[in-house]
């Protein structure tokens, strides 16, 4: 199964070269970034001073207990939340979206309810340059083909002209993924993009995502609860402590690419999983009660 990328600005080889030349650059950098929501007594510390540096073109998975601040880190990177302390630099600038083309799949697939699935998926093309200017100039039909091809890949053929409320939870999540990918972003922020899917659909999408990454080498930050998923997809896995979160472990995943599902049953892989499990178990132990934080 191959990822369909029409009108891709670069061939696969060109992309590889480009990726290598950018390799030294830092795509996302959090320095002592902390986030506290609310004020005074009711404040919730979501993120402790967090250090995270993601070089351009890397695939990083973020795992950790529920409520530890994973989504908050993604929102920091997307510029949707400002750090209450520390600095967040994306693509060399503090304003994320102006610096890098960002694709984000939110944890809750918030589709705009007045748009069909296809229109929702095409939304980034309406907003982000260079597609934006083309969108106005009759390129709409070819963009629609692009959207349909993506939707077909995730198994949503025939649902393009439905409205979001006509889709099941898992189907929405797949459409959400399409919306994050359609404009070939350089920074991909994925918040549990496969959570509501059955194992098989999930594994299929892993492969699609891996292929995509191998060709275009975007920087990817993936939040997941599935350690197999993290191991299969990522170059690096960051483990977070319980809220207020902080990165307590950062390990490289060395398995060769392209990885296969079979690989995930190999002893090395299982050992990695086990190590992560233990780390998270420890992390959860230390969870303080929220209001007393």
């Amino acid at each position, binding site marked *: 199964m191959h990822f369909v990328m029409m009108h891709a600005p670069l061939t696969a080889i060109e992309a590889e070269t480009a990726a290598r030349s950018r390799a030294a650059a830092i795509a996302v950098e959090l320095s002592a970034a902390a986030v506290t929501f609310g004020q005074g007594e009711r404040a919730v510390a979501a993120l402790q001073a967090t250090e995270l540096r993601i070089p351009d073109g890397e695939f990083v998975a973020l795992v950790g207990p529920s409520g530890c601040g994973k989504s908050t880190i993604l929102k920091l990177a*997307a510029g*949707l939340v400002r750090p209450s302390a520390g600095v967040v630099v994306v693509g060399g600038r503090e304003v994320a*979206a102006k610096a890098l083309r960002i694709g984000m799949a939110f944890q809750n697939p*918030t589709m*705009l*309810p*007045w748009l069909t699935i296809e229109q929702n998926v095409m*939304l980034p093309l309406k*907003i*982000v340059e260079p597609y934006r200017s083309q969108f106005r100039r009759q390129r709409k039909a070819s963009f629609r083909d692009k959207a349909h091809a993506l939707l077909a890949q995730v198994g949503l053929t025939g649902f393009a002209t439905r409205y979001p409320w006509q889709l099941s939870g898992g189907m929405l999540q797949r459409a959400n993924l399409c919306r994050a990918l359609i404009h070939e972003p350089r920074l991909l922020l994925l918040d549990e993009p496969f959570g509501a899917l059955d194992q098989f659909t999930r594994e299929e999408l892993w492969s699609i995502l891996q292929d995509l990454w191998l060709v275009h080498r975007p920087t990817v930050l993936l939040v997941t609860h599935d350690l197999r998923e993290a191991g299969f997809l990522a170059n690096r896995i960051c483990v977070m402590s319980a809220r207020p979160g902080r990165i307590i472990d950062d390990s490289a995943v060395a398995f060769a690419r392209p990885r296969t599902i079979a690989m995930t049953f190999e002893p090395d892989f299982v050992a990695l999983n086990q190590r992560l499990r233990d780390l998270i178990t420890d992390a959860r132990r230390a969870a303080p009660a929220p209001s007393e934080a």
Partner: protein
Amino acid sequence: MPRPEIRQKLASAGLIVLFFVGWEVFCVVSGMSDLILPRPSQVFVTLVQRLPVLWPHIVQTLVTTMIGFILGVALGILLGALIGVSKTAYDTVYPLLIGFSSIPKVAVVPIFVLWFGSGTVPAVLTALAICFFPIVVNIATGLATTEPELEDVLKALGASKFDILWNVGLPRTMPFFFASLKVAITYAFVGTVLAETVASNRGIGNVMMSASSNFNVPLLFAGLFILAALGVALYVAFSLIEARVTGWATRRNDLAAAA
């Protein structure tokens, strides 16, 4: 399933007819003087008899109202968007508008007349002045209550404030925009008629004024019926557009699934 739908429509029409029958009966039974409240049958007879004479007035009022209404809608959207987006506008423009809106427009009509002469222009302005406020309020509220999650979808893409307004704020606000249109169009008619009674030689307002000074109450009520009918006609037109534009918001699957 066309059967129950038709029955539904018939029942509704029946109830509306019942309303007029009730009015008729009330007038007859209570011995109400037709100087105060004529019987609907009287009004209908007058209406039919005088329709040829009334026609140019109807056209005049309708055209004036539509112009004022369209301008009012444009102004309402503009100000509503401004207030919904900018805190400063919320704090300054809102109170001024509330103040202006609390003023009976009949007090400003003379000013319009003295500036622009009597006739269509003051009527258009009065219709505009009276109808834009509900639109402002609903657009502003719609924008202010837009879920940040929906906006975040665009913000993450680096969309400008205007992009967000255009792609999220305004579409989300549509149901309440259409709600305010219903209010605005009725008030636009009131505004036009008001101005026509103050200074104009044509229009339903003028007819009503002359009917009232002739003690011709059935004709006065015929004027009111025409206004009501125009209001309802435009309401129906908007409803059709509304159903197309805001269908997403009024989907109702209450227990219904059957094909």
